[in-house]
């Protein structure tokens, strides 16, 4: 079976029609992982036993001629920040190297209940902090399209696994761009749903007012199918919203003629690579060709998004990561003599440089004398950023931008300069701060054959429209 073109529907139909068993499909993906992952490094843990049990369950349903659930037998990968019962969950950190989750993340449980076969857990930047996947405590991930380049981050392993056909789809998490930017770098689709759309129960927390779970897939329809599966209120996560879940799959093929698409000048300024600009402008022309009305708009506070984000995200992280204290989660420094020494040395020895930097920055921003100047100030600017979108969305249905200012950069290129790395998220952090949904879809390549991403941002809980626009572009491009 040709795994490269295999999507959710194709896999499910092939199983339903008995052309292939779920077991064989899982084995084919494991063979692909054995062949390619040595050089890519997308996976941290494989869970073959659990995968094959689930595949067998699907095959028995199929043999009995029973109707198959929407993700029946679909081999998927899960970013290693989502808890999986009985399976190691590391968050890319030495501090959780031996941590076995006692329960399943809701999104993972919903995927499995819909028939998905979980192949394994994917590599990521430590605690999802990074834009290149080089902050993993275990090993870097290489971009399957060019092994000298990064896959983006922090969901780099999930994006690379889908791009290299080692999984049909994957789940990732997005706090500042961590689904969309790696999707853009690896040439796949990445969807960050509205804040509250998908339960975070069982997601290892980075910044709780910004963390989202979403899919990385080979096409727009698969993203719609997975969103329909994982979206909706979960009593285990009080921030999951009580907003009805539409049938994204039924809606995503609707024509886009007449939709108003905003193009904000702030996303096309200094720092945007010429090849990326050209590809995104061509994509916008194609959308106009499909009958969309292109409306110039302004989101004037955009230049303040990165500094706002790095105050709020690090402040929340400094609090969330206080729990890694050497008592409960598998790692403790050896030879400690007092409780205080145990805390300090356990954290010192198990956190990487970027995690320490963010804990320090966040603790500083929250400390006495600096709270108003940094944390409160950033929360106020966050209001201004959210208002920019509120105002703009009274006039347009969605906003189209580049996902990232450049295509995938080289390993090591930005790893010594934290600020340069932070600026890789310049077009993605705004949506996390405002809580709006965003999707990245491939829109061409550079001369060096590196993928370029088109980002579509939408109104709160209006994933249907951004999926429609994404599908509209996908149709025009094929």
């Amino acid at each position, binding site marked *: 079976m040709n795994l490269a073109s295999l999507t959710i529907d194709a896999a499910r139909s092939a199983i339903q029609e008995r052309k292939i068993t779920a077991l064989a499909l899982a084995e084919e993906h494991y063979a692909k992982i054995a062949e390619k992952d040595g050089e890519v490094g997308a996976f941290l843990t494989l869970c073959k036993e659990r995968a094959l049990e689930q595949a067998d369950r699907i095959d028995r349903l199929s043999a009995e001629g029973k109707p198959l659930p929407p993700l029946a037998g679909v081999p998927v990968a899960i970013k290693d920040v989502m808890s999986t019962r009985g399976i190691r969950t590391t968050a890319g950190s030495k501090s959780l190297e031996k941590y076995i989750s006692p329960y399943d993340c809701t999104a993972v449980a919903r995927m499995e209940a819909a028939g998905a076969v979980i192949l394994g857990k994917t590599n990521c930047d430590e605690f999802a902090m990074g834009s290149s996947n080089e902050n993993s405590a275990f090993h870097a991930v290489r971009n399957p399209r060019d092994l000298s380049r990064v896959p983006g981050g922090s969901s780099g392993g999930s994006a690379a696994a889908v791009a290299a056909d080692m999984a049909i789809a994957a789940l990732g998490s997005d706090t500042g761009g961590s689904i969309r930017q790696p999707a853009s770098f690896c040439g796949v689709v990445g969807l960050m749903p509205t804040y509250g759309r998908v339960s975070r129960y069982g997601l290892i927390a980075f910044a709780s007012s910004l963390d989202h779970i979403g899919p990385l897939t080979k096409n727009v329809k698969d993203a719609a199918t997975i969103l329909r599966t994982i979206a909706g209120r979960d009593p285990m996560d009080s921030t999951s919203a009580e907003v009805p879940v539409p049938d994204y799959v039924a809606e995503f093929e609707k024509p886009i003629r007449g939709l108003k698409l905003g193009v904000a000048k702030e996303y096309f300024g200094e720092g945007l690579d010429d090849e990326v600009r050209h590809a995104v402008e061509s994509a916008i022309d194609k959308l106009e060709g499909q009958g969309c009305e292109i409306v110039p708009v302004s989101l004037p506070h955009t230049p303040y998004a990165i500094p706002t984000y790095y105050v709020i995200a690090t402040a929340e992280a400094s609090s969330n990561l*206080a729990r890694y204290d050497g008592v409960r989660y598998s790692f403790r420094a050896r030879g400690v003599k007092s*409780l205080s020494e145990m805390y300090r040395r356990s954290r010192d020895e198990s956190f990487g440089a970027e995690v320490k930097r963010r804990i320090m920055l966040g603790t500083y921003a929250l*400390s006495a004398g600096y709270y108003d100047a940094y944390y409160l*100030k950033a929360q106020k600017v966050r209001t201004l950023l959210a208002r920019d979108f509120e105002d703009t969305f009274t006039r347009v249905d969605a906003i189209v931008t580049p996902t990232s200012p450049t295509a995938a950069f080289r390993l090591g290129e930005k790893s010594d300069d934290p*600020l340069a790395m932070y600026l890789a998220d310049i077009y993605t952090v705004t949506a996390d701060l405002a809580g709006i949904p965003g999707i990245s879809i491939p829109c061409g390549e550079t001369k060096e054959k590196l993928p370029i991403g088109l980002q579509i941002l939408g109104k709160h809980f209006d994933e249907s429209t951004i999926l429609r626009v994404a599908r509209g572009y996908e149709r025009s491009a094929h």
Partner: protein
Amino acid sequence: MKVTDKDVAYVADLANLELSAGERTAMVRDLNSILGYIDKLNQLDTSNVEPMAQVSDRYGIDQGKQGSERFSYATRDDIVEGLRKSLPQEVALQNAPDADGTFFRVPKVIER
């Protein structure tokens, strides 16, 4: 320089980090570089702007309701095993680097 060696030592203490001498030097450099960039926020007058602590307060809720009523869907009765059974003790302790079967074990807290 906004952040000094002394500040880094103080903040590391608050964050329960030790940091080696090399890490502290790098931290002074990095925090100054990042905070210098963050100072850009002071270009904006925010004196009449409400802070936004979370997204859920603004979107996706019934704006017709008042105060905590708006989040009534997210509350439940305060009862034991309200949503799910608590983890069995052995499961809750399974990841502990040191436990005695009933409790997490840590180095002595009070020195004498």
